[in-house]
């Protein structure tokens, strides 16, 4: 699956300007119990034609990252309190919400976890797909409808000409997600954010949707941020991966670096807890303990209470992302003991 996207990448200069560059992003939520720092210094780049996977447990901040980029943080509870989101020469974190939304409609698009609740139940799907054409490009009804039909065909809805007049509840889960994708790619965005796009779907449908996303990316050369808790789903599609824990990126690198040589104990734990074909009959190893309470984060490294490698330093100091000594460039982890973790594997 990765071949066509690689080709696109080689076509442009390898170290060209990133499409989007997130730097030291900080997001806070105010709840009745106190202020929660949902994102604490998140940085990453997305390039044209590249897919970056953001992985982590629920509550790790991966969805909040997407919401922050799209200016969809729940108001008034959530707000960006620091950092920047550079896109096409502008900082989305500093722009008024209205301006960000305008960019989002045309250049950055998003698809969501639950395609049923994400589609408006009282409007026909054709109308919903045609809406951006009519409202953003000013097309008339006929033109917009033709475009919507074309899109439905393109995302693989059979008998699109008839089904364009149906309502969301008349489609299956996988078809609904295809419709969401059609809506997202309508205005040919340069960046697509997919927030758990396959979590609500059957396993067989999951791979079809991932294949569709990869094909569309190959055709259009758009960048993609793929958010998931499922390391298996993204493995074939993404080139790079960032692992999040408690609002921070704890490890990032190419997908092979991260999957084959995890340098953070949390990543190692995640990989050990997924079933794989080569380890049939072996026990799955769950990560000890529970995900952290963002209201009362542990001191030092947030992962230390669950970490088999933890030492005194981990309880006192917050580790920064760094390249483990003697390993490839581009692979970083936020752990004082990455070398031991890598050696253990």
């Amino acid at each position, binding site marked *: 699956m990765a071949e066509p996207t690689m080709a696109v990448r080689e076509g442009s200069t390898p170290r060209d300007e990133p499409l989007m560059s997130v730097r030291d992003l900080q997001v*806070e939520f*105010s*709840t*009745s119990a106190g*202020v929660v720092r949902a994102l604490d210094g998140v940085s990453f780049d997305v390039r044209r034609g590249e897919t970056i996977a953001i992985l982590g447990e629920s509550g790790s901040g991966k969805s909040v990252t997407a919401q922050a980029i799209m200016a969809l943080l729940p108001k*008034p509870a959530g707000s*960006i309190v*620091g950092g920047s989101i550079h896109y096409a020469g502008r900082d989305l974190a*500093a722009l008024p919400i209205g301006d960000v939304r305008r960019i989002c409609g045309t250049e950055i698009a998003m698809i969501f976890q639950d395609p049923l609740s994400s589609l408006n139940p009282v409007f026909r799907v054709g109308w919903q797909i045609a809406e951006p054409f009519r409202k953003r490009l000013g097309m008339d009804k006929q033109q917009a409808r033709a475009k919507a039909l074309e899109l439905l065909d393109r995302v693989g809805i059979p008998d699109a000409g008839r089904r364009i007049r149906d309502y969301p509840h008349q489609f299956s889960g996988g078809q609904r997600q295809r419709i969401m994708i059609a809506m997202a790619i309508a205005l040919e965005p340069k960046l697509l954010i997919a927030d758990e796009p396959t979590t609500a779907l059957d396993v067989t449908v999951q791979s079809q949707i991932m294949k569709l996303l990869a094909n569309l990316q190959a055709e259009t050369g758009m960048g993609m941020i793929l958010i998931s808790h499922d390391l298996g789903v993204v493995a074939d599609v993404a080139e790079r991966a960032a692992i999040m824990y408690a609002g921070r990126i704890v490890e990032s690198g190419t997908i092979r670096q991260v999957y084959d040589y995890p340098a953070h104990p949390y990543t190692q734990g995640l990989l050990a807890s997924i079933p794989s074909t080569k380890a049939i009959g072996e026990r799955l190893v769950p990560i000890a303990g529970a995900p952290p309470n963002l209201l009362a984060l542990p001191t030092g490294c947030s992962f230390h209470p669950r970490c088999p490698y933890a030492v005194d330093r981990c309880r006192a100091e917050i580790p920064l992302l760094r390249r483990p000594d003697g390993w490839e460039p581009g692979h970083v982890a936020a752990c004082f003991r990455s070398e031991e973790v890598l050696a253990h594997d």
Partner: protein
Amino acid sequence: MTTPARVSAATRTMRRARKARRGVRLRIVIPLIIVGLYVVGAVIVPILYHFDPLSTDLLYRLKPPGSVVGGGSTAILGTDQVGQDLFAQIAMGARVSLTVGALTLLIAGVFGVLIGLLAGHFGGWVDMVLMRIADIQLAFPSILLAILLASVLGQGLTNIIIVLSIANWVVFARVTRGQVLALKNREYVEAARTLGAGHLHLIFRTQLPGCLAPILVVATVEFGHVILSEAALSFLGVGVPVGVPSLGSSIQAGTAYLTTAWWISTLPGIALLILVLATGILGDALRDRYDPRLRSA
């Protein structure tokens, strides 16, 4: 950097949330105090004034608020068309309102909750029959049903309570049934069922407790409705019998003297309004507290 401004935005929303929570507490305490004052006033004032609903004092009739009347006392809210002290009359009317309200809630509540529990627990044809009865009941606007029944049964406090109970049980039945259906498949109810608990135990020990919060909310809101309905029936002349002072009949009596003695109609109405408003605020606050789905903050 714009950071300081953004931080203050976050703390501002938090402060607002905290204020909202304190608001809920105030919105529970203050209405309770008001209702308490009404209860105390309804008990004490008629005794202090040696109130006799049948006594008249034509010499001091239609006196405006603050007038000095017979015996040198001051009628702070004036007197009515037969010379009775309006304040004492309002207190007596509140006594009727509160009694009718409380007893109606008790009867309609117990009856409605029982029906709701049965319908929700047994489901099937029991549910079907009970809910169709409720549908027919709902075909009558509740005040219309009350008027019809009251006109047939005749005037009297007991009849009013019966009539209003009949007109109000459905709300309790529906809310309870809905809640039971929601609870039915919860693990703890299923656990009790698999452990072999009987119907009685299931209904009263596992389901009823889960229904209490919404029932409490409904009861508070209905209390105001019932008091308003009683006043409306008395205003229409199908409520309390002649000679029993009620806020509704006082307002009705005053309509004949609107130009000469505005206070006779106006002041009992305000007394009624404050009482109903207090229960309304209380009901809202309880809902905010117990029904997080409807919570706005």
